[in-house]
């Protein structure tokens, strides 16, 4: 299962967010920030750079999120960065999301798409996944231009790939 350190941080962040009474918002903001860290290597390396003073890195976080995210989210990310766990922040957030969903007896379905899904599409996709797998899921959308079109859904170790990228890759394989 997950790294004890990662799950420990996830539990702590979950507890703080739940205590603050704004779990859904904090969870969503943390998820988006974690995706930003995954896609932006420069931001990730800057916040993980031990040669940069902690206060400077925390200041970067506050500059990025100030006015765009809740104070709780900013404080939690700043705390993780200050603890020198920036590199582990995406995994911590993933564990937090799974833990939050599990608290509602749901699984997390990470959906990658070139464009955001409408609320109707999210609900229909959650229902379709429930129909297909028998699991109640919460949809977490990740905007990924490399998908080109269509959707890639990851539920745990299961992947349902309906992307244009996969079609092109299949076409590429057929040429070989």
């Amino acid at each position, binding site marked *: 299962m997950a790294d004890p350190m990662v799950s420990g941080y996830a539990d702590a962040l979950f507890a703080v967010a739940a205590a603050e009474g704004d779990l859904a918002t904090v969870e969503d903001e943390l998820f988006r920030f974690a995706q930003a860290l995954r896609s932006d290597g420069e931001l990730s390396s800057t916040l993980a750079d031990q040669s940069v003073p902690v206060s400077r890195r925390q200041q970067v976080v506050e500059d990025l999120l100030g006015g765009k995210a809740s104070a709780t989210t900013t404080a939690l990310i700043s705390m993780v960065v200050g603890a020198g766990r920036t590199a582990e922040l995406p995994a911590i957030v993933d564990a937090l999301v799974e833990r939050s969903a599990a608290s509602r007896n749901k699984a997390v379905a990470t959906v990658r798409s*070139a*464009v955001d899904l409408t609320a109707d599409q999210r609900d229909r*996709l959650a229902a*379709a996944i429930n129909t*297909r797998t028998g699991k109640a899921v919460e949809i977490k959308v990740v905007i990924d231009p490399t998908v080109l*079109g*269509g959707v890639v859904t990851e539920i745990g170790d299961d992947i349902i790939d309906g992307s*244009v990228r996969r079609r*092109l890759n299949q076409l590429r394989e057929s*040429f070989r």
Partner: protein
Amino acid sequence: MNNRRTRLLVAPLFALLGLVAFAGPASASGESVGACMAHHLDEAVEANHGDLHETLEDHHVQDELEKCFEAPSPILPELNEVIWGGSAFLILFVLMVKKGFPAVKGAMDARAEKIRSDLDAAEQARTDAQSVQADYEARLADSKSEASRLIDEARGAADQVKADLMARHEAELADLRTRAAADIESSRAQAIADLRAEVAGIALGAAERVVQSSLDAEVQGRLIDAYIDEVAGSNG
């Protein structure tokens, strides 16, 4: 050998007896001229009753005295010399027969025996030498045979090594050829695959650009809806 020595000793004896037998009357007396003249003169004086003068005038006496001046025989010695010489010879001959001849014979026998033994030793040495020579020749023949055998073995080993090297080189060459052919085939296949991949990449890149340009919001929405329908329609 003994007959030869006997003949050598008897020949001088016969020569001496011949000289004595053929000695003439003139010199039978064996006297000197003076003694001869004195002898004849004494006989003539006594025949003439002591008359020296008549005796000297007698022609017969004068002839007899004249004979005393005649030269002695160039061959025959004087009788007394014959006697003394013969006696000495006989004494010497007897001494030689009694003492010298056995000593000489013993020395000769010893010498002959020594020569015989030397000849035997030489013969034995020659036999030994021949034996040694035969032994050496046998050893030499063995050595030559052994050397020939060793040379044959070495030649055989060299031929074997040569054959092994040739076989190994042939095998390596065949392996190299096989590997080279495989490499060529692999390179050819890789080149074809690379070319195919290159062509596919170019074609797919073009297709991707076309797809990207055609994927507007409406199309994206339809693709997502189609995906949802697909997930909902396929249980498991």
